[in-house]
């Protein structure tokens, strides 16, 4: 249990998807103009990460890791399918986002109208695929740890996008040099926020 909490805190603050790995930057810059849309996208990311990462974890454990097919029959023990992981992960993510979109549209129209345009965007959000690839690389021990990592990274991403959206809303009132306006200053502010987040680095949990 302790381990699960520490993985959560670590993935929110220390290994923050945006500030430590720059994952999901494209939608981070494009959809952070107002706090309201940023909150919508942030929630959608937590949601999709929370579903796809555990699914990919199970697929990785029972299908892709070298030698893991032994549970079907001992003859398959030396089959290595790990080269298929990219294609399987992305297929899972793309189909789950499409599935989630349909389910939400059917059963929660209000949520759909606020998340609607963001769900298809998420299929190509690097943070989602990045989460699955980091999960594979770090080799989490059980499903609980994988879920906690998924929710933690999602929350970290949510915090980052809401933070930058709030700053950009205020930024409208400041006199930024013309060529730097818009995207340029957003990059620099993200960099400064990243430096601030680095104060969490080196904390041992």
């Amino acid at each position, binding site marked *: 249990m302790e381990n699960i909490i520490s993985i959560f805190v670590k993935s929110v603050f220390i290994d923050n998807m945006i*500030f*430590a*790995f*720059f*994952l*999901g*930057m*494209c939608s981070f*810059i*494009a959809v952070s103009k107002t706090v309201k849309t940023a909150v919508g996208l942030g929630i959608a990311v937590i949601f999709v990460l929370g579903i796809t990462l555990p699914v990919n974890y199970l697929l990785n454990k029972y299908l892709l890791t070298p030698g893991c097919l032994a549970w079907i029959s001992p003859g398959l023990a030396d089959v290595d399918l790990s*080269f*298929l*992981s*990219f*294609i399987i*992960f*992305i*297929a899972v993510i*793309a*189909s789950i986002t*499409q599935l989630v979109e349909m389910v939400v549209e059917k059963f929660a129209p209000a949520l759909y109208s606020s998340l609607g345009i963001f769900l*298809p965007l998420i*299929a*190509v*959000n*690097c*943070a*989602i*695929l*990045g989460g699955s*690839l*980091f999960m594979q*690389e770090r080799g989490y021990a059980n499903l609980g740890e994988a879920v906690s990592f998924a929710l933690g990274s999602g929350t970290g991403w949510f915090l980052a996008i809401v933070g930058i959206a709030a700053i950009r809303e205020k930024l409208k009132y400041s006199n930024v*040099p*013309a*060529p*730097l*306006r*818009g*995207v*340029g*200053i*957003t*990059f*620099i502010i*993200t*960099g*400064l*926020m*990243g*430096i601030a987040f*680095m104060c969490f680095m080196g904390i041992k949990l």
Partner: protein
Amino acid sequence: MEKEPMFSAKILKLFTDPINKGNPITVLILGICSALAVTVKLEPALVMAVSVTIVTGFASFIVSILRNTIPNRIRIIVQLVVVAALVILVDQILRAYAYDVSKQLSVFVGLIITNCIIMGRIEAFALGNKPWPSLVDGLGNGAGYGLILVIVAFFRELLGSGTVLGFQVVPESWYMKNGGFYENNGLMILPPMALIIVGLIIWIQRSFNKQLIEK
């Protein structure tokens, strides 16, 4: 219908436009995710630039061939599968011939799949154009991406480690520890500096191209 020559001015423009005025990173803001994390050293950045250029070009090419047979509703999955297959090829080749670099790039080779440049060019260009212009457009966008990557990596490696492509550029005798006056800027190696350098590149580029300035 009149047949267009292979290398007409229009085709050439498809290639050169993304390098400056339609640059995917600094103007369209696509593909930043992977761009920043691999730019600490020049060598992985070069490998990444070449890989992305190849994948973007061929993904556009293949999707453009298939464009009339893909049903609209499931096109994103089809596109992703095409891209993923190409990325697996690149990953396996890197592991076979450049193992050290492939270790340094770690998950970022896989993340080429979700690089927005590739999906963006497929959606915006390859779905509505013939294979040959799509290939050129893909390669051009890959090159524009690679250019920014290489510029950022060059400055980060030079200022952060005093080397270029692993060769010592700043003379050893300049360093403090050898009695000189110079010290590497450790901040350059840290991830946030990549963002700030891209911000500065955007600043410089837009001061020369006034029409790119946002209101």
